[in-house]
C-alpha cells in the first residue's frame, strides 16, 4: 500500500548499491589512514572510463573492467600524493575531485562527441529464491552488479574481521608506528587499500553510467561520492555502521522521490517518522535510565507529539522539494546527535602521512 511497497524497496536497493560499493572501498582506504575527499572524481572517472570502453568494444564485462581501470588510475594518483609524496590528503583529495570532473568532461567532448546509448545490465532472477515473497522480488531479482556488490561487501567484511590482512589494515590506520614495528609494510597496505578503493569506486561509477542507464553525462554522479564519504564517517569506520548509513541515505532518497510525485504527504510517512523519533528517545532512555530529561529529549518529545498528530490528522500538505532532498543528511545528523559519540573515533592515523623517523 502507498509509499512503502516492494517497488520502493527495490528502488532503495538500486540507489544504495553504487554508494555502498564506493563507500566500502573508501572505508578500506580510511581504515588504512588515507581519506580521499575526491571520491566523487574517482566515481566519475569510473563512469566515464566504463562508457568510453563501451563505445569502443560493446561489451558490459569489458566496460566494467574499463571503469575499474579508470578508478584505479585516479586512485593511483591519490596514492602517489598521499603515500609517496606525503602531501596533505585533504588538498590532494580536492585536486583529485577537480581533475576527475575536468578530465572526464574534457575527454567526453573529445573522444565521444556524439553521445551513445547502451543497454543497461539486465535484471536476473535467481531461480527458486526469486519466488520468495517480498524478499525474492527485492533481493533475488536484481542486476548482476547488485549481486556482485553484496558479494564484495561480504568479502570485505570477512577480510576486515577474519584475516591477518584486516588486522594489518586496522593497525596501519590506527597506529602505523606499531604496524611498522611489527614488520607490516605501511606503504604496501596503504597502496593496496587506496587501489582497492579506486577499483570499487571505478566499478560503482561504471554502474552509474553503463550499468544502470547505459549512457554517460558529465558530472552525472550527482554527489554520490560525498554521500559515500559521509556514510563511512557516519558509520564510525565500521562495516555495520556503513551499511546502516547507506540504508538511511537510500531509503530517504527513495522516499523523497516517491513523495514528490504524490500531491500530499501520506499519513504513513508521519507515522514512520514518529516511530523513528520514539525509537531514538527510548534508546537514549535505555542507556541512562535514571536521569532528568535533557532539553534534547524534551524537543524530541514535542516532535513526537507533533508527528503523531500529523499522522492522525493527515493534512493536505506538500513540502518543498529541497526539504525532501535534505532529508537524508538531516536524519543522519539527528542520528549522530542522538547516538552519542563515545564509540565514534576515527582511526588515529587518518589523514596523517607516515614518516618513519618521527616514530
Amino acid at each position: 500500500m502507498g509509499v512503502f511497497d516492494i517497488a520502493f524497496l527495490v528502488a532503495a536497493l538500486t540507489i544504495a548499491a553504487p554508494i555502498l560499493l564506493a563507500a566500502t572501498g573508501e572505508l578500506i582506504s580510511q581504515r588504512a589512514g588515507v581519506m580521499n575527499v575526491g571520491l566523487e572524481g574517482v566515481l566519475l572517472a569510473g563512469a566515464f572510463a566504463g562508457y568510453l570502453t563501451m563505445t569502443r568494444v560493446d561489451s558490459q564485462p569489458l566496460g566494467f573492467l574499463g571503469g575499474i581501470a579508470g578508478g584505479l588510475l585516479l586512485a593511483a594518483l591519490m596514492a602517489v600524493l598521499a603515500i609517496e609524496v606525503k602531501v596533505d590528503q585533504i588538498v590532494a583529495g580536492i585536486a583529485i575531485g577537480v581533475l576527475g570532473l575536468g578530465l572526464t568532461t574534457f575527454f567526453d567532448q573529445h573522444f565521444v562527441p556524439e553521445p551513445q546509448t547502451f543497454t543497461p545490465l539486465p535484471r536476473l532472477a535467481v531461480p527458486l529464491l526469486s519466488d520468495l515473497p517480498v524478499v525474492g522480488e527485492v533481493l533475488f531479482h536484481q542486476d548482476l552488479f547488485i549481486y556482485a556488490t553484496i558479494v564484495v561487501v561480504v568479502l570485505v567484511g570477512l577480510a576486515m574481521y577474519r584475516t591477518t590482512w584486516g588486522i594489518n589494515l586496522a593497525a596501519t590506520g590506527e597506529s602505523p608506528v606499531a604496524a611498522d614495528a611489527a614488520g607490516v609494510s605501511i606503504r604496501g597496505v596503504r597502496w593496496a587499500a587506496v587501489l582497492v578503493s579506486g577499483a570499487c569506486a571505478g566499478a560503482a561509477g561504471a554502474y552509474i553510467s553503463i550499468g544502470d542507464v547505459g549512457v554517460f553525462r558529465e558530472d552525472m554522479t550527482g554527489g554520490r561520492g560525498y554521500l559515500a564519504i559521509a556514510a563511512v564517517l557516519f558509520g564510525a569506520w565500521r562495516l555495520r555502521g556503513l551499511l546502516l548509513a547507506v540504508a538511511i541515505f537510500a531509503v530517504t532518497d527513495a522516499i523523497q522521490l516517491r513523495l514528490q510525485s504524490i500531491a500530499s504527504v501520506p499519513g504513513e510517512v508521519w507515522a514512520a517518522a514518529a516511530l523513528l523519533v520514539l525509537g531514538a528517545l527510548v534508546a537514549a532512555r535505555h542507556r541512562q535510565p535514571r536521569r532528568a530529561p535533557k532539553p534534547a529529549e524534551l524537543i524530541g518529545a514535542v516532535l513526537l507529539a507533533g508527528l503523531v498528530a500529523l499522522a492522525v490528522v493527515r493534512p493536505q500538505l506538500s513540502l518543498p522539494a529541497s526539504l525532501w532532498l535534505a532529508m537524508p543528511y538531516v536524519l543522519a545528523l539527528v542520528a549522530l546527535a542522538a547516538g552519542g559519540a563515545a564509540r565514534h573515533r576515527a582511526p588515529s592515523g587518518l589523514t596523517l602521512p607516515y614518516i618513519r623517523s618521527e616514530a
Partner: protein
Amino acid sequence: GCGSGDEAAGTAAAGESSTINIGFLAPAPRNDGGFTQYALAGVQAAVDADPKLKLTSIVDNASESQEQIEGLQSLAAKNKVVVADGAVLNKAVAVVAPKYPDTHFVLIASDLEALADNVSSVTVAVGLNAMVAGAVASNESKSKKIGMIAGPEVPSSTAWYYGMAQGAKIENPQTQVAQAYTNDYNDVGKAKQAAEAMIANGVDQILSDLDSGSEGIYQAADGKAGTGVYNVFALHCDENKNIIGSGIVNWSDVLKTAVTEAAAGKLASGAISFGLKSGALSFQFCPGKGTDEQKALAEKITKDISDGTVTPGDGVLLPKPSYAFEQR
C-alpha cells in the same frame, strides 16, 4: 608580454573587417542533448548560412553569476553578437550589457523587464505546448495519472507542469498530474529512479523536461508496459519505443532567426515571444503513435489556444512583463 593581448581584445568588437563575430554563453554543458545543444545548433545554422558570420567562442558550464558576468564581458569585448542562452542569465546580462553598447545581446528564454537598448530577449511560450501534451497524455493514460519530471525547479519547468495540468483537465477533469524534480539535468540514474517512483505511484504517461537525463526515463518506461513518454524540444522517436510524441520547441529555428537578424542589426530590442503561430512551437507524434482521436484533440487545442477560445491559466505562461511584447 605584459598586457599586449588586452588592447587587442578590447578593440576587437569594433573591428573593421566585414566578418561579424558571435559569442555564445550557456550555464549548461554544450552537449546536453537538449536546450543548450539545440540553441547552439541554431546559432551554427545561422553562421553556416552566412559566410560573414563567425562563431568565435563558446563559454559553457557557467553556472555561477560571477562567472557568467566575466564570461559575458570577455565575449562582449570581442564579439558583435553575444547569445546568452538561458533565463538565469537575465541579471548577468543586465549587468554587462550597458557596459558594451556596441554589442548586441540575445538573451534566450527570459522575459525580464527593463533591459538595456542593446538586448533582445527571445522566448517561446512553452506552456502552450504543454497544454497540448497534457491533453494527449491524459487521453492516452489508462490510470488517469500523468506526470512531469524535471531537473532543477525553474520557471520553464513549472510552466510545463501547469500547462500539462490545464491540458489534461480539458481532456478529462479526473486526470491527476504529478511532478518531480531531480535537481540535476545530468543525473541519469536519479531520473530513472524518479520515473520508477512515479510509475510505482500509478503514473503511466511521463513528460521528460530533462535534457541529458531523459535516458533514465526511457529505461524506467521500458520496465513497465504501457508507459508513454513525451519529450520537449524535439522528436527522439528512434531513441525509445515508448515515446509517444514531443511538444516541439524549435529552439534551433528561433535562434537561427534571432542571430541572423541580430547580426544584420535588425533584431529589435526588448522582448520577443514566439508562440504557436510562429511555428516555433508545435506538438508532434512519433510515427505510428497517436490515435486519430488524439491527433484531432491536439489540433483542436492548438487552434483553440491560437484563436483565444482557451486562455492559458495561472502559471502556464511565464509571468508577463508589463511592457509590450513583440508576439510572433
